[in-house]
């Protein structure tokens, strides 16, 4: 009969281990960890690369010197006096640059202009200069803040650590300023405190999760978060003891999350921001009279879509603002041209050079030209040179061995003539050549200047050459961070050269990872084939082909970015088709007769087929509602759906629906339990425990949810924690205790079957796994009712209905589906439910707010687990329902397998419910890995394919956990029952 149970388990575990190994290798290889240079820029950054007078001792130099000495050293080395000695960095979270600067050369909308009169007047008078600062995706706060202060573009995985705000250890602007003795004050988003612990002299942090959930953001809250920032503003402005003041206003982002770009709260919020700008600017003007040069920089970390979301890479989201106010360049002529576009990372080098500190080491930004308008030509070229040197150092760190010719270190001119070459060839050569051109032009300019024959032409040529080099280098470096293809191709190139060992790693990792995944996938499929041939022989029919075709089409659709974006359509379409196939199958098995008699079947309760038809209709209706609940996807999110409609109806409606569906979930669960057998004590116990949990969850909903203040109160947190504990104890207790106590009352009801030894075990096994499965499913549903957004409570209820309906359908023997088809269908339903709960393949739909329910302190691990629970609610629910499914199906083995041994029985019962999800998941995972590798040059690789890959990985984790839980539960229950049987036999023998 082929495989034994042990062998099967070992092979499966082996395949899974290989798969996990391959997956982690691939992830490590594909998502490059940011190639950061360690250490900080010191005095050496004022010398050309390769001139080593400070290079070796940079750390000691910069550490040993007291701040004021270091400051003067920098000033002396750079030759540029710092232009400002105070900086006020005002971060307005989520403000699209369009609101201030307009779009495509057009001024912003009139009401927006009127909302910010002071800022607009500054712009039109030329006192301020504004830029569209293009933010790199992911457009969420922390990576963007990091980009602004360090000039580096984070790797893709940075977003995963967005909520794990840890100290920024790389070289950054704030660290540099701290080193030269600047005193800093921070008011606003707590993220800054987490990024820069201990740097601020004074601070007043506001958590960006000030309230429980985004739905609970209310009008008061959007005002409150900003009042908490502004309340100290006047006091701080009147003080004179700080050099850097950071203000981070969260309110505008919250306004966007509540009502989108055109929220009625937006104009008042902009007016408020304008007031702040006015206050600061007037104060800065005043302090200027006292000899303090203050620069006000207003930036936003990212923009927002029409709906107020952010995270992706659309123009609306990446269009962030950089507004420099108080530059001393009297550039009234720039008033009309305040629509330049720069990159967000350009802010870092600009500020660094304006304030007289070295450019951070990992910066890929290019200094913004117009901000240095007041500098003389010579100084300006020096600024460009410093930035170019820093970029060249970074390029050299990326390409070890790159040398662009030697330049004298003492700044003396080299006489090579000012000829510049055409630059083409490999990227390295181009970069080198561009740099050489710029350096040559610069030195030529210097020599000409010495001979007093300055011409404007040479100067502008030099500037252009520097910019050409820096922009190319910047683009190359930022692509290199975010794009695997470059590192991929160069690593192949380098396999020929000397640096074989240094750079071959990614290719090896990727290849090994993919091979391991393919291998494990093949092993799992082979096992699946083996088992399914054993358990459900029979010839192929339409349903089998359909299920397989689904997988095929899914795999194929993964190659198209729009199909990945709109994946929910595929699942829903497949699922409704498979329900129709189920219906067809049911109609096939209906007794022959006329149409009329078949309609009569609905009324006759005796027939088994009537509840089959009924449950299929339930499935169809529930599926349709689930599908309409959230529009989902990316391109058509604005279309109406049920959840939007309900949210418009108001908070009270949503809450009453939430309470109602909570009650319905409890009732339905208890009904399913009562249906099973209400008279037994153990069942009553279980029912009581579950009811208890349900009432606690309802209490939490009624008392605390839907109310911003209450939901973040300590009472709510405590109750939520209690619910977690009680749900855990209930489900764990039922699993552990039930197999010990289940048999009572069993023998009387099924006495006619007590003929085979197996039935002594199988009957209680069936009962206990039914009750355990139901307890699992119910506990999970209750947990979701607690954690999910209020609007998602009805889908949870519908998913429960679907589970019960499909199990009812499968329990009838008339439908001769193969078992693997049924398990695959359950898996598909889980995936469709995943999208019905409002998830999509972009990271923006992850419900972050729910992940803080019941957490009293910020814990990355716990909130990560909660986030996982919320996101994978539906797949996990259906995997847990596998326990019930095993129970439903084990009835069939009662008759068939009279005297088989435990191993065989377990294999037959558990083999498919465990292997099919694993096999399907491994197909999808492997296929998607290959797709991702093929798509590495695709335009959307970071915005569409990579987020989807993270989802696929998380779904794999979900499948592993779910299958493990199912297998462990069933094996435990089975062996406890066998043990009890042995004990009772030996006791009766002893008595006899």
């Amino acid at each position, binding site marked *: 009969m082929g495989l034994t149970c042990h062998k099967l388990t070992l092979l499966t575990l082996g395949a899974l281990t290989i798969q996990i190994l391959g997956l982690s290798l691939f992830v490590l290889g594909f998502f490059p960890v940011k190639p950061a240079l360690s250490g900080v820029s010191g005095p050496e950054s004022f010398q050309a690369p390769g001139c080593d007078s400070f290079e070796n001792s940079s750390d000691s130099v910069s550490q040993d010197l007291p701040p004021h000495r270091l400051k003067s050293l920098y000033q002396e080395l750079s030759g540029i006096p710092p232009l400002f000695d105070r900086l006020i960095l005002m971060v307005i979270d989520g403000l699209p640059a369009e609101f201030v600067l307009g779009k495509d050369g057009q001024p912003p909308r009139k009401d927006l202009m009127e909302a910010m009169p002071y800022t607009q007047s500054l712009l039109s008078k030329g006192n301020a200069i504004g830029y569209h600062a293009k933010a790199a995706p992911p457009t969420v706060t922390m990576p963007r803040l990091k980009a602004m202060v360090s000039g580096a573009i984070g790797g893709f995985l940075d977003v995963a650590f967005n909520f794990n705000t840890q100290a920024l250890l790389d070289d950054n602007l704030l660290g540099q300023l701290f080193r030269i003795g600047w005193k800093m004050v921070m008011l606003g988003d707590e993220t800054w405190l987490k990024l820069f612990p201990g740097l601020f002299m004074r601070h007043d942090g506001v958590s960006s999760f000030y309230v429980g959930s985004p739905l609970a953001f209310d009008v008061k809250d959007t005002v409150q978060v900003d009042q908490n920032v502004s309340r100290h503003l006047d006091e701080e402005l009147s003080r004179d003891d700080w050099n850097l003041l950071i203000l981070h206003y969260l309110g505008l982002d919250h306004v966007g999350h509540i009502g989108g770009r055109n929220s009625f709260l937006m104009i008042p919020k902009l007016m408020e921001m304008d007031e702040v700008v006015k206050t600061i600017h007037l104060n800065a003007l005043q302090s200027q009279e006292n000899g303090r040069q203050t620069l006000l920089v207003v930036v936003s970390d990212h923009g927002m879509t029409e709906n107020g979301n952010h995270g992706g890479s659309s123009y609306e989201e990446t269009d962030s603002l950089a507004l420099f106010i108080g530059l001393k360049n009297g550039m009234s002529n720039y008033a009309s041209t305040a629509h330049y576009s720069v990159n967000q990372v350009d802010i870092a080098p600009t500020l660094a050079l304006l304030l007289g500190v070295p450019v951070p080491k990992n910066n890929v930004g290019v200094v913004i030209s117009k901000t240095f308008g007041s500098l003389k030509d010579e100084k300006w070229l020096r600024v460009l040179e410093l930035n170019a040197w820093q970029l060249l150092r970074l390029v050299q760190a990326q390409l070890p061995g790159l040398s662009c010719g030697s330049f004298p270190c003492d700044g003396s001119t080299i006489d090579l003539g000012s000829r510049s070459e055409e630059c083409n060839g490999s990227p390295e050569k181009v970069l080198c050549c561009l740099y050489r051109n710029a350096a040559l032009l610069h030195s030529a300019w210097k020599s000409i200047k010495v001979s007093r024959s300055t011409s404007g032409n040479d100067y502008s040529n030099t500037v252009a050459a520097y910019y050409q080099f820096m922009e190319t280098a910047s683009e190359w470096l930022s692509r290199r961070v975010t794009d695997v293809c470059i590192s991929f191709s160069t690593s192949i190139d380098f396999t020929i050269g000397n640096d074989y060992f240094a750079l071959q790693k990614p290719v090896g990792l990727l290849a090994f990872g993919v091979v391991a995944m393919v291998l494990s996938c093949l092993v799992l499929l082979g096992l699946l084939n083996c088992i399914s041939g054993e358990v459900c022989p029979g010839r192929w029919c339409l349903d089998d082909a359909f299920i397989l075709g689904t997988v095929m089409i899914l795999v194929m659709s993964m190659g*198209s970015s*729009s*199909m990945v*974006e*709109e994946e929910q*359509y*595929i699942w829903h*379409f497949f699922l*409704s*088709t498979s*329900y*129709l196939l189920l219906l*067809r*199958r049911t*109609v*096939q098995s*209906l007794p*022959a*007769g*006329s*149409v*009329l*008699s*078949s309609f009569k079947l609905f009324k006759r309760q005796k027939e088994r087929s009537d509840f089959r038809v009924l449950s299929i209709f339930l499935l*169809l209706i529930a*599926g*349709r509602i689930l599908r*309409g609940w959230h529009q989902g*996807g990316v*391109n058509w999110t604005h*279309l*109406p759906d049920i959840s939007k409609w309900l949210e418009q109806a108001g908070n009270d409606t949503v809450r009453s629906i939430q309470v109602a569906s909570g009650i319905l979930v409890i009732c339905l669960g208890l009904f399913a339990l009562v249906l099973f057998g209400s008279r037994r004590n153990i069942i009553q116990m279980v029912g009581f425990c579950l009811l208890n949990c349900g009432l606690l969850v309802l209490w939490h909903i009624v008392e605390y949810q839907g109310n911003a203040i209450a939901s973040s109160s300590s009472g709510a947190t405590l109750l939520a924690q209690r619910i977690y504990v009680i749900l855990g104890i209930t489900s764990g207790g039922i699993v552990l205790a039930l197999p010990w106590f289940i048999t009572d009352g069993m023998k009387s009801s099924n006495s006619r079957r007590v003929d085979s030894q197996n039935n002594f075990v199988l009957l209680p096994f069936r009962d206990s796994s039914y009750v355990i499965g139901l307890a699992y499913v119910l506990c999970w549903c209750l947990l979701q009712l607690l954690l999910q957004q209020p609007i998602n409570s009805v889908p949870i209820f519908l998913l429960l209905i679907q589970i019960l309906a499909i199990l009812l359908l499968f329990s009838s023997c008339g439908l001769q589906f193969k078992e693997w088809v049924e398990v695959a269908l359950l898996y598909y339903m889980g995936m469709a439910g995943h999208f019905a709960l409002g998830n999509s393949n972009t990271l923006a739909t992850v419900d972050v707010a729910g992940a803080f329910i019941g957490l009293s302190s910020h814990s990355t691990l716990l909130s990560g687990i909660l986030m996982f629970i919320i996101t994978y609610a539906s797949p996990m629910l259906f995997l847990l329902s596998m326990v019930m499914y095993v129970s439903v199906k084990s009835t069939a083995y009662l008759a068939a397998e009279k005297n088989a041994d435990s191993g065989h029985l377990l294999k037959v019962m558990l083999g498919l419910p465990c292997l099919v999800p694993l096999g399907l998941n491994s197909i999808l995972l492997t296929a998607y890995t290959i797709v991702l590798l093929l798509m590495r040059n695709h335009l959307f690789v970071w915005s569409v394919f990579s987020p989807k890959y993270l989802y696929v990985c998380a779904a794999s984790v979900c499948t592993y956990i779910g299958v493990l839980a199912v297998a462990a539960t069933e094996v435990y229950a089975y062996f406890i029952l066998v043990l009890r049987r042995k004990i009772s036999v030996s006791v009766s023998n002893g008595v006899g």
Partner: protein
Amino acid sequence: MKEEKKQKKKEPKPATRSVSPPLAFLVHLVCGFGLVAPLSVTHNLFSLTLISDSSSTLRLIWVVETVVMILVYSSFRQNPEQCSYPRAVGRGILALPVVIAGCRPTSIMMYEVIGMQYLAKTINWSLFMSSLMFVPAASVFGSSWTDWQRMFAHTKPNGALEYMICIPAHGAVIGGWLGAWPMPLDWERPWQEWPICVTYGAIMGYLVSTIASLGFVVAHPRRHRLKGD
């Protein structure tokens, strides 16, 4: 209908007219013409296409196609001696509202965005689909549950006539099913709207499967008679 049921019980295996391959070809030609002609007529005369006004174009198609189907297939009705031609025609017309009750929920389940603006389109599309799928069957079989079950649940057509009904019906369904695939893609073409590409898919599926069914008719011309004997 009740009468019919009684008659069915009296005579469980009613005789059906046998269909020769040339006749089948002719029937399919007429039906295919009934499908394609309204499309080209609307396009040329009223400059209406599915894209510009899917609702009225669909209406025209299903009206013409239903009339053609009923007129043609009623002449192949089961046990013609008990069921007159006008009666079969009536049966086919009666089938439309009955069948639409099944088609419309199906289309809601499968494709449609809920909304009033799609109501007319969906109803017309349902009628269109039922004119392709169920009207011929209704004209031929009436309300005989066994035949319907055999045709649409088991997909076991028996004899040339049943091939001619069953295969195009399934072809239309499969074509419509496949036609729904481009809908979620972001090509931003006008034909990606509901129900345009689904209709095109159904038409294509229908036309392809009529050819396939001709093949079956040619390949198994005698099967019915053998069974009948």
